């Protein structure tokens, strides 16, 4: 009986150590509490690491060419630059500009139209989309179960080496939730560690007066769905949020994106129609397209002088967080993929 007690005691200790690597999100004390509830699946260092490997693994696409990171590069705050619309396997073009991935723990609904309500379900959308990864979670699970690197990694985290759809998706969710961008010059100014120059200061005042209702600090979005006056693209015919809610009042509404790291997340808008920040500001100044669901804030446009536009851009550049973009723990996990 004593031997059995020792045996179960050892198991308890091993499980205890394995689960003892839980991590917490680090963010400024002035920020609101995250919406993401990790009570059922606490953030864990090993799981985040394995989620990162999956995020960078092209095996997640049908022809092993496209990984999540292909359209969500860490060096661009986890989005895709140069292309208006994200492209997937066989150079197929999607219908939307890939959104930047950071601070997801503060977002209730994900994607431009809020189609996804939980981060663990997020990856299924690009995995299944024929113009993105063109695969299925079933196909991925079959591939990964033949990969000794993953078998070994799963064994070290779970009590067995079984690779299931649930585990793969939750690991990807762990990595994405761990991505917190909160170390820009703006953040350092707010915590008293730095100062805006005069131009940035004028830009911040303009921002607070004209932009902050939708791009609410400190996350620089209220993550609501709004029609910001973009003329609908006759080719894409994208009705936005209405596709999900089937409510006409949601027609042409898209999620307000965060302005954090905006210097590196071009092109802009859900369809990537603007390449430069000045084009975006010009849109609000004189290109608002009127429709039934246009946000009332924009009915008269938002007008800036030429100098004000320059000042506003100067402020927006203070939202760049290079420590986030170039953090080694967010980059390609070479050690994992170099394993024999």
């Amino acid at each position: 009986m004593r031997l059995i007690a020792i045996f179960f005691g050892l198991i308890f200790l091993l499980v205890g150590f394995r689960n003892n690597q839980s991590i917490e999100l680090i963010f400024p004390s002035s920020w609101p509490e995250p919406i993401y509830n990790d009570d059922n699946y606490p953030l864990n260092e090993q799981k985040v690491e394995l989620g990162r490997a999956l995020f960078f693994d092209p095996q997640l696409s049908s022809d092993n060419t496209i990984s999540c990171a292909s359209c969500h590069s860490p060096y661009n705050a986890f989005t895709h630059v140069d292309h208006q619309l994200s492209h997937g396997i066989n150079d197929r073009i999607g219908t939307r500009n890939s959104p930047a991935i950071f601070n997801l723990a503060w977002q209730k609904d994900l994607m431009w139209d809020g189609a996804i309500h939980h981060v663990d379900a997020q990856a299924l959308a690009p995995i299944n989309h024929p113009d993105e990864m063109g695969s299925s979670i079933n196909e991925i699970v079959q591939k990964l179960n033949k990969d000794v690197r993953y078998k070994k990694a799963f064994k070290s985290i779970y009590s067995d080496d079984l690779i299931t759809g649930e585990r793969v998706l939750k690991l990807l969710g762990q990595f994405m939730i761990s991505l917190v961008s909160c170390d820009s010059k703006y953040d350092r100014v707010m915590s008293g560690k730095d100062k805006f120059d005069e131009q940035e200061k004028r830009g911040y005042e303009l921002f607070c007066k004209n932009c902050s209702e939708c791009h609410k600090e400190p996350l620089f979005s209220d993550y609501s769905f709004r029609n910001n006056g973009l003329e609908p693209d006759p080719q894409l015919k994208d009705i936005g949020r209405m596709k999900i809610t089937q409510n006409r009042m949601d027609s042409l509404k898209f999620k307000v994106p965060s302005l954090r790291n905006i210097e590196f997340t071009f092109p802009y808008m859900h369809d990537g129609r603007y390449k430069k920040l000045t084009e975006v500001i010009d849109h609000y100044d004189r290109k608002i397209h009127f429709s039934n669901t246009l946000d009332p804030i924009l009915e008269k446009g938002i007008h800036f002088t030429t100098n004000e536009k320059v000042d506003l851009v100067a402020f927006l550049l203070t939202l760049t967080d290079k420590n986030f973009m170039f953090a080694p723990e967010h980059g390609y996990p070479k050690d994992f993929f170099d394993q024999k």
Partner: protein
Amino acid sequence: MIRSIQILILFFSLGVRAQDSIPVKVMYDRFEIQPGKTILFQDDSIRIDVVKFYLTNVVVGGSELSSGLLFDLEKDQNYLLIPISQIDEIQFTLGVDSLTNSNGISGGILDPIHGMYWSWQSGYINFKLEGIHFENGIAEEFNFHIGGFLNGYNCERRIQLQGSSNVSRLELDLYQMLQTLSTDQLKKIMSPGKRAMDLADILADSFFLR
């Protein structure tokens, strides 16, 4: 040591209750549907290729079963394991409840590898029916993917059925569901919404203990 093992065996055996099983069948009017087989439908015919659905939160004899069922017409057998041999009453949810949906992804029969989770939006597909309707010499596909739990369109349905002493199976009769093919233009319902809610109501009235 041997005595310790005996105690462990006794401990585990006490935890196991005698179990019975009740088969779950899909019917069209009194005929059991077979995958890929054509059935007569009004003056024409129908071929059913896919029937998949969740029965969850199953309560039999006052106690909830530890697991539900992902019915799949392709499987040789579909049955619920029940703790008693006689069913006086059974309650279950057709689909996945909104709390489980809210929590994201789950495992086991709810693992998305089973193809019952939407990818273009969140949520489990509660019920799938796919096939071909041959009408006046024209073959037309139909796809019904019933689900959704948000924005006022919650398609889970709680079903309660009374049994008798000679219950031998749980049946889903697709007769009423398939009649919609002759009255509706829309043969592809693959989004949450009012139409999916109406079909969920029809399905909720289509289960029987026989």
